[in-house]
């Protein structure tokens, strides 16, 4: 291991002397509550740079400038300004937290710095503006609900009821699920917005029960998700429970016990080992001996860094040309470790990985691996 590192650094210094140095930025939460994911992302971007620098065919020598946005909008804007105003930095792999990514889009646009978001999931980051600088490799709740609607309708479900909380998160899920479900031919018999701290859902659920839907879609977070699932049982409401990324955690299962069995939910991204290039990524990652694991979004930071460096290889370290190179005309079905990447006019990857989960024996199991997909177990009413 030590030999390998030594050998690598020798190669690096050799390469460094021969090639022009190009600087790219990584911005993510390196301190605070989300720092585990931030550090995993940084390591993964760093891995991409190290591997590229070890590649003799690379035209440039790359240097990663690491900046901490603390998952706070004000700190994020400061770091974005720092990266944007530093003319030696030609592009960025930017942000995990949606609030921060949302706050910084204007800054990147103002400085003309190409940025590729590696983790934030709010649709508005790419879709609420026409900034050519902003791109994103990971999916959003739009893709999540597209996958959701496709799976449930393919299971033959036709009648749906929706309960969502009235935060941006819940309302967004309600909007996109409704949109995709209608496209896929599902019918929505009831749609309730509820407050995020509501305790009693018996009134809503009694109304829903009278309408007799096959599926109850829930757009919201764990606490009220738990309540709704438990109270369905109290009222004898038999329907498939279909949730969003907000409930994919162990607490949901722990709080419900056996009632969690068979619950569906969807999340952007996938465990690294399940990604197309995940095995090699994990092996490379391990070889570098980083102190923290890559976490859920590490592979996306890696893919974003690779995409950025590929563009630089083609057109050189020029911000304007890089933005041109990251336009939909050029980024189409590009292979990456997270699967194909295709940008639309908003710079959003339109074919991101979404993992479909079902609770089986007290665990979130990817749909493909579950006994539900295999037909050994059945979803409600199938």
């Amino acid at each position: 291991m030590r030999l390998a590192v030594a050998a690598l650094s020798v190669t690096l210094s050799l390469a460094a002397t021969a090639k022009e140095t190009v600087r790219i930025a990584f911005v993510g939460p390196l301190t605070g509550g989300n720092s585990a994911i931030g550090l995993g992302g940084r390591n993964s971007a760093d891995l991409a740079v190290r591997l590229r620098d070890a590649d003799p065919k690379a035209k440039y020598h790359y240097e990663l400038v690491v900046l901490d946005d603390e998952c706070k909008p004000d700190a994020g804007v400061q770091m974005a300004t720092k990266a944007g105003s530093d003319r030696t930095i030609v592009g960025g792999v930017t942000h995990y937290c949606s609030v921060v990514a949302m706050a910084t889009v204007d800054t990147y646009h103002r400085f003309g710095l190409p940025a590729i978001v590696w983790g934030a999931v709010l649709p508005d980051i790419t879709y609420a503006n026409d900034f050519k600088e902003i791109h994103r490799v990971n999916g959003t709740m739009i893709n999540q609900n597209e996958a959701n609607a496709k799976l449930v309708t393919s299971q033959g479900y036709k009648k749906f009821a929706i309960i969502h909380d009235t935060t941006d998160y819940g309302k967004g899920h309600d909007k996109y699920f409704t949109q995709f479900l209608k496209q896929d031919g599902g019918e929505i018999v009831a749609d309730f917005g509820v407050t995020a701290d509501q305790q009693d859902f018996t009134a809503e659920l009694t109304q829903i029960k009278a309408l007799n839907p096959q599926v109850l879609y829930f757009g919201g977070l764990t606490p009220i998700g738990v309540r709704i699932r438990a109270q369905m049982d109290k009222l004898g409401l038999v329907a498939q429970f279909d949730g969003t990324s907000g409930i994919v955690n162990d607490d949901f299962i722990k709080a419900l016990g056996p009632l969690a069995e068979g619950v569906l939910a969807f999340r952007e991204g996938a465990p690294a080992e399940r990604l197309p290039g995940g095995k090699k990524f994990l092996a490379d990652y391990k070889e570098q001996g980083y102190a923290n694991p890559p976490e859920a979004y590490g592979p996306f930071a890696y893919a974003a860094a690779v995409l950025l460096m590929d563009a630089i290889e083609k057109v050189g370290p020029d911000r304007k040309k890089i933005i041109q190179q990251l336009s939909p005309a050029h980024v189409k079905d590009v292979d990456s470790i997270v699967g194909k990447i295709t940008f639309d006019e908003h710079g959003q990857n339109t074919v991101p990985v979404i993992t479909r989960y079902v609770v089986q024996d007290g665990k979130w199991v990817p749909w493909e691996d579950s006994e539900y997909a295999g037909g050994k177990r059945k979803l409600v009413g199938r």
Partner: protein
Amino acid sequence: MSLSLLGQYVMNGAMLGMMYALVAVGFTLFFGVLDVIQFSHSDVLAAGAFAGLLAWAALTALGVASPLALLVAVLLAAVVATAVLGVLVGRYIVLPLKGAPQLNVLLATLMAGTVLRESIRLFYPGGSQPQMFPALLPTRGWDFGAFHLRIDNVILLAAGALMIAGTHLLITRTRLGLAIRAVAQDEETARTMGIDFRRVVLITFALGSALAAFAGVMDGLYYNEVFFGMGLLLGVIGFAAAVLGGLGNLYGAIVGGFLFAALQTIGAVALPFASAYKDVFAFGVVILLMAIRPTGLIGERASERV
């Protein structure tokens, strides 16, 4: 709307109303004896539910499997924990502030409630997420069309009614009740008659809090889930119900509790707008009713407090 569906709504509303009434009775008892608003009451309730849950976890870990034994243990743990908490709040927060403006007591107890609530979140393992509460009552049920009648709900409703009736009897038919009523009517005279004022106040705090414990366990058994913040809304609603009925009046608290539950159910079911507004509707009507009857629905007519 079919009759069976109506039956289901009435049942849902009755369960909610019973819990609100139990909380409201506590508020009204405290106000009756001391003219104070004990705003940590609902967090004492949450603490009671978690104490019950802890007792359940401890006993199941020891291998106790009988639902009845577990239920008794859960109730006991909850009642004892809340009674102690209630007495502590009464003794160390409310009584020392007796001479101070009412506002100070309200603020002090509000803060004590926050301390309790946050303590549950921080110190109970995984306390920031909802916890599963065991189903200790028989869960069999019958379907009458859209109406799903469950045995456990019936038991909870009956037990709640018994608790309130018991409290009523205790206050109207026993020497202790007489003392409580005496203190409520006139502290000075009660003292000259040889009633230990301090003791009566603390017993009332224990009694009111124990009722909250029962409401907490009922909440847990009904929803099969408890949450550190479960007292927040229950407290506001329970207090609103007590005020609506007439603060200090036992019947008022009961009427207020059921009325509020009915308003919420109507808000969610019968009104043409989204159910997210049901609390807006219910509280709006409460404000209106308070404007019409400032002393509560039956506060004025019954001269006797508590």
